[in-house]
């Protein structure tokens, strides 16, 4: 009897928990899965980039076409991200601070670009500004090139990164309500003062979070941009497009060298995003996808 009880005691485990073996097995399977689908692809980018040493890596990056691609990518992000930032703040202000008809529908429309294939996002601008459209030849007669030029790339990038800032801010500002703003206004602050001194400090971390994700996508967008860019080397080639060209020319070291910069950007984005989540979790509430 006592022997039995003792044996039972050592064999006891929480019946609302898995056994150690099960846990170990699930963790192991997860790690194997992630190795094949996340770790190895990420590592391989850097391994391939440095396959022929640091010298070839540097050479691939200082090459004029690569430089032009890097500059264009930075330029496009520098235009697209601030525009979507202003839109995101305006849309979130209207949606979170007021009750009006059709609000749910408006939110659905803002999320729309996430459910449209990037290729289609580019295609809509080709149809709008292409040589067989109404607008294209008209603008061309005034010397304005949209398609196969920088404006087209910027437009396509704005399209695909459209929802990022807005969808971070809307749930956050809805949670915060209107009490702070009403207090500021009743104490005599103007609308702008209220926004700058009350609302903005409340939403700054969520805003930064949205801008971070928006920027990562803007710099890395491939499908939409490839449709509208025309891929003219040194002129309308962004970094992701340059990666494709080099890869298709079997110039693997150069392709992966440029790709490694983009991968680095992704890693920095993830690191900053994680820091924001850990330190200011409440300030970016609703921030998870």
């Amino acid at each position, binding site marked *: 009897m006592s022997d039995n009880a003792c044996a039972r005691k050592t064999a006891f485990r929480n019946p*609302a928990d898995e056994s150690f073996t099960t846990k170990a097995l699930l963790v192991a399977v997860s790690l194997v899965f992630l190795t094949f689908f996340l770790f190895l692809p990420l590592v391989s980018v850097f391994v391939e980039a440095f396959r022929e040493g640091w010298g070839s890596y540097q050479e691939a990056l200082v090459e004029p076409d690569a430089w032009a691609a890097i500059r264009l990518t930075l330029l496009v992000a520098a235009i697209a991200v601030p525009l979507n930032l202003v839109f995101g703040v305006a849309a979130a202000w209207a949606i979170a601070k007021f009750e009006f008809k059709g609000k749910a529908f408006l939110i*659905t429309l803002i999320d729309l670009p996430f459910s449209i294939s990037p290729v289609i996002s580019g295609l809509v601008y080709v149809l709008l500004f292409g040589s067989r459209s109404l607008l294209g030849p008209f603008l061309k007669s005034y010397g304005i090139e949209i398609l196969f030029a920088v404006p087209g790339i910027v437009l396509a990038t704005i399209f695909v990164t459209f929802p990022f800032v807005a969808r971070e801010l809307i749930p956050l500002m809805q949670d915060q309500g209107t009490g702070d703003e009403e207090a500021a206004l009743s104490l005599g602050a103007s609308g702008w003062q209220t926004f700058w001194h009350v609302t903005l400090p409340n939403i700054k971390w969520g805003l930064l979070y949205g801008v971070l994700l928006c920027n990562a996508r803007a710099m890395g967008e491939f499908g939409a941009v490839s449709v509208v860019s025309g891929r003219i080397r040194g002129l309308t080639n962004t970094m992701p497009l340059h990666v494709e060209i080099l890869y298709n020319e079997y110039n693997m070291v150069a392709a992966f060298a440029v790709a490694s910069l983009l991968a680095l950007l992704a890693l920095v984005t993830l690191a900053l995003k994680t820091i924001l989540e850990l330190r200011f979790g409440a300030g970016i509430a609703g921030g998870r996808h």
Partner: protein
Amino acid sequence: MTNITAASTRWRLKQPSIIPGFGLTLGFSLAYLSLIILIPVAGLLWRSAALGWSGFLAILADERTLRALYVSFGTAFVAALVNVVFGTMLAWVLTRYRFPGRRLIDALVDLPFALPTAVAGIAFASLYAPNGWIGSLFMPLRIGYTPYGIVIALIFIGLPFVVRTVQPLMEEIDREVEEAAATLGANRFQTILQVLLPALTPAILTGFALAFARGVGEYGSVIFIAGNIPYVSEIAPLLIVIRLEEFNYAGATAIATIMLLISFAMLLVINLIQAWSRKRYGNV
């Protein structure tokens, strides 16, 4: 008196508020939304309507178009199914177990959101090619340059959608429910299958739908590994690009329209799942 009743029953766009800026912010948002998204997308649908029913159907009935749509939807479906299994498991492991490196893995799950698709594309192509690190391991079975390769790339792309939809819900599960089930004699397997899983189903379905929708339209990460053989491993977004390069705008427009309509239907399904689960379980 009549004035007051008239005012309170009159149709209003917005509830009264002392906060300023409604007209400015809503006006700007609507103008920007229309210029960037609505007018261009409406232009696509208008172009497509101009083809007429017969023209539209003739393009869609083309064997190559049908195969491309089949490849896109088929591979996205399989990849989303794989992600439901592994994504749910991963979410479970990350919420319930403590092991070294958990934080790092939790952060890295979002890599597919942050990594540019072209970078993922060339990485997967070189890894899973017949002579790549992983491709050579499976060698009698060719992964790279076949539909299997497309599925691999789409598993990568869709993984965070499932994990990040399921994970918050798992974190909120009340452990007492599981203890109650155990007290009532359920074994662990029964508890997970019959107590926990039903509550997680709406989130898993939403994750599946999001991963599927994203996979159908995915382009950058797929084209490098797919091999792009017409009728076999050519995806619909690539066929749109090919039609555009041939200046076959009608062809590109028709394929884009059917994909867009299916995406809208998916969006509706996702919203319905969420409305249904809110009604049934209170919150998603």
